[in-house]
């Protein structure tokens, strides 16, 4: 089945968009949404739009938006050319949606009267809320189906099995992923829904995750948010302003091996179920011991305020360290891992409740790093082995993706991988 029949989007359409540049408010075709700074005040002090095209994909060091819809896809039995077309169509629609336009040219309320609208419509009248759409490629994409085996970056490892993993196969892996983030949950859902629709017949949804309440800050201007244990999360996160740190720890470089990944990054997602019911009946003493920080301020137990560096040597009574050896802050801290850092960009989730009447709640962890094998893996191993918190969490989902660099404005995401850049 050709893409023209399935989606109505085409390479011509993509080139047309590129020719016009990024279409702004009022300049689009009939279905364009109301868009633009100042159209709606949001609670979050972030810009209302971020560019889709550029050196890096947006949605990585972009100030973390409030909401997430993340989706992993399996590619159907299609050809290499059809895969390229899918990525072109996705790029075309994503570029439009991030500017507040409809997914297709006609929009949700226009076009041929006897045809279904080329946009589903639930984002009509809504500002994009800083929508970013970020694409990634899983290890399984680099098997023998699409002639990409020799393009697989060495940094795109298969994640090892970590102790305390209780992974559910249906929540693991995927050939492709899309991370849609916006301050408006309906806008993020709209993006995934329309991109899934565009993919019908070419790729199918494997698993997806809604998230609310970002659990980390990616810029210094953002206040540190809290996870569902009630503690601040991501105090020591890498920030966009730390350009040297971001260059060193987040962006893949040409010297890393896969030249087409230059300016890209690697995404690890982990769905972490929290048993909040048992957590809520532990004492404040134990909760703070587990984190190694105070619950209110978020200060390390060695003293100071939130952004004071923890002093792991500082001892209290009986010469025991004030910050427990197996506390979360100790095991995850860069000092414990020879300075290695990752950029976390996770979200809280509550997927209703389970059969036992417990909230199916937790943290959808997302991290970006240049080399998962030397950054994410050792940190996760230390946590999985010894983290005091393990009594209250279990890892149920896991995936890793190569996030290619941003697309040039006349091109599409992943063009370099196909030598089409």
């Amino acid at each position: 089945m050709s893409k023209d029949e399935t989606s109505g989007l085409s390479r011509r359409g993509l080139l047309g968009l590129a020719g016009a540049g990024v279409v702004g408010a009022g300049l689009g075709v009939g279905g364009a949404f109301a868009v633009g700074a100042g159209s709606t005040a949001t609670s979050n002090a972030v810009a209302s739009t971020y560019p889709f095209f550029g050196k890096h994909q947006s949605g990585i060091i972009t100030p973390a938006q409030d909401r997430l819809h993340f989706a992993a896809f399996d590619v159907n039995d299609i050809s290499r050319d059809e895969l390229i077309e899918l990525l072109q169509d996705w790029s075309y629609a994503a570029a439009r949606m991030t500017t507040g336009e409809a997914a297709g040219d006609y929009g949700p309320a226009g076009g041929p009267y006897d045809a279904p609208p080329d946009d589903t419509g639930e984002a009509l009248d809504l500002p994009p809320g800083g929508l970013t759409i970020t694409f990634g490629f899983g290890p399984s994409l680099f098997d023998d189906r699409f002639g990409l085996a020799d393009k697989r970056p060495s940094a795109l490892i298969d994640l090892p099995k970590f102790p305390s993993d209780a992974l559910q196969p249906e929540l693991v892996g995927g050939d492709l992923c899309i991370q849609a983030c916006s301050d408006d949950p309906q806008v993020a859902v709209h993006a995934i829904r329309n991109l899934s629709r565009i993919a019908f017949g070419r790729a199918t949804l494997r698993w997806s995750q809604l998230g609310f309440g970002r659990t980390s800050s990616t810029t210094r201007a953002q206040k540190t948010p809290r996870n569902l244990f009630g503690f601040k999360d991501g105090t020591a996160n890498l920030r966009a302003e730390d350009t040297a740190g971001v260059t060193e720890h987040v962006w893949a470089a040409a010297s890393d091996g896969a030249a087409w990944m230059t300016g890209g990054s690697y995404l690890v997602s982990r769905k972490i179920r929290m048993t909040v019911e048992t957590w809520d009946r532990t004492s404040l003493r134990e909760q703070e011991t587990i984190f190694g920080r105070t619950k209110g301020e978020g200060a390390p137990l060695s003293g100071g305020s939130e952004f004071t560096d923890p002093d792991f040597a500082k001892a209290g009574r009986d010469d025991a360290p004030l910050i427990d050896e197996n506390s979360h802050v100790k095991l995850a801290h860069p000092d414990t891992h020879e300075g290695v850092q990752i950029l976390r960009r996770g979200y809280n989730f509550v997927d209703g409740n389970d059969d036992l009447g417990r909230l199916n709640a937790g943290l959808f962890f997302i991290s970006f790093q240049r080399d998962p094998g030397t950054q994410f893996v050792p940190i996760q191993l230390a946590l999985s082995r010894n983290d005091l918190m393990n009594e209250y969490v279990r890892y149920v989902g896991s995936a890793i993706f190569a996030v290619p660099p941003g697309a040039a404005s006349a091109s599409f995401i992943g063009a370099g991988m196909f030598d089409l850049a």
Partner: protein
Amino acid sequence: MTTRPTRFGFAAAATVAALTLTGCVANNTGDAAGNSVTVDSSATECAISASEAPSGNLVFSVTNSGDQVTEFYLLADDGLRIVGEVENIGPGISRDLVVLVQPGDYFTVCKPGMIGEGIGKTAFTVTDSGEDLSFSGDIAEQVDAANANYKSYVKDQIENLVVGTEDFADAYIAGDDDTARALYAPTRVFWERVETVAESFGDLDPRMDLREADLEDGQEWTGWHAIEKDLWPADAEAGFEAYDQSKREALASQLVEDTNTLYSNVQDLEFTLDQQTNGAIGLLDEVASGKVTGEEEFWSHTDLWDFQANIDGARVLYDGVRDILVVKDEALATTLDTEFEELQTLLDAQREGDGFRLYTELSTAEIRAFSDQVNALAEPLSRLTAVLVL
């Protein structure tokens, strides 16, 4: 069931023990936080915002404005006996001390650096608010008795575990699988009753009680559950091969050896009151996270044996401190009595022969009822430590 560090925390909890002798309790009645006094512990001062307060629930909000780790004490009229304390307050950090104080004369003092006499020792008066605080102040003997009794209980359970494990290992090595299967759950009961103690020896627990799901790549799997899978291979993955004789012998003899090491380790353990109360809630959490979900006995499905054993252990811990609790908070004792009974009724309904029905034979509604009742018991049980200890 766990590879995980546990909440029993022998070293960390030791410092709280002394407080149990003083008869102060935390607010637990659900009213507002009570009267509040701020304390500023600096390098040179222990500045307190008031010199008197009415009797009843009292909160000292202690802020460490110095650059050393500090402690704050409320002392009795002799200036020595500790009525309440907070320790390990890092520089810049605030922490509350919540105490139920009787009318009388007290002293407050800070101890930056955690050594010496402390600084800023100040008289503090508690006036009579008229609130009825009638409970016996001297429970030291009861606390000592509870601590000693629990020590005996732990030793007794582990002795039984040693004997039972030897019989189990003999049958398994001899290839008498029926006997081994029959001994499996009844022997593990001795472990599960004192699980929070048994699993507190970091390297022993993963060797003895690790589940397959908790293994990491390349880690060798030993202990009860590795043998369990060999004895109940019905749910094993395709291609699973029964262990050969040398593997059987290696697993069984290591389990016996590790159990003997555990036996030695518990001989000299001493328990404090908060270790016991936290142990009780820890056992309930084990039930909630492993047994109610059927994940603990993944191959044999004998989870209800473990469930009952965890509850037995929690019940022993609770009964050991119940007399003290009745003095301090009779309503909580009544609630816990009721909830323990309700849970036991549910368990009794699943008895079959000398044991229980298999987890896989339970209906969703029955599992749900267990889960709900575990929550109903665990929530009030989680208040026990604060009521008894602080």
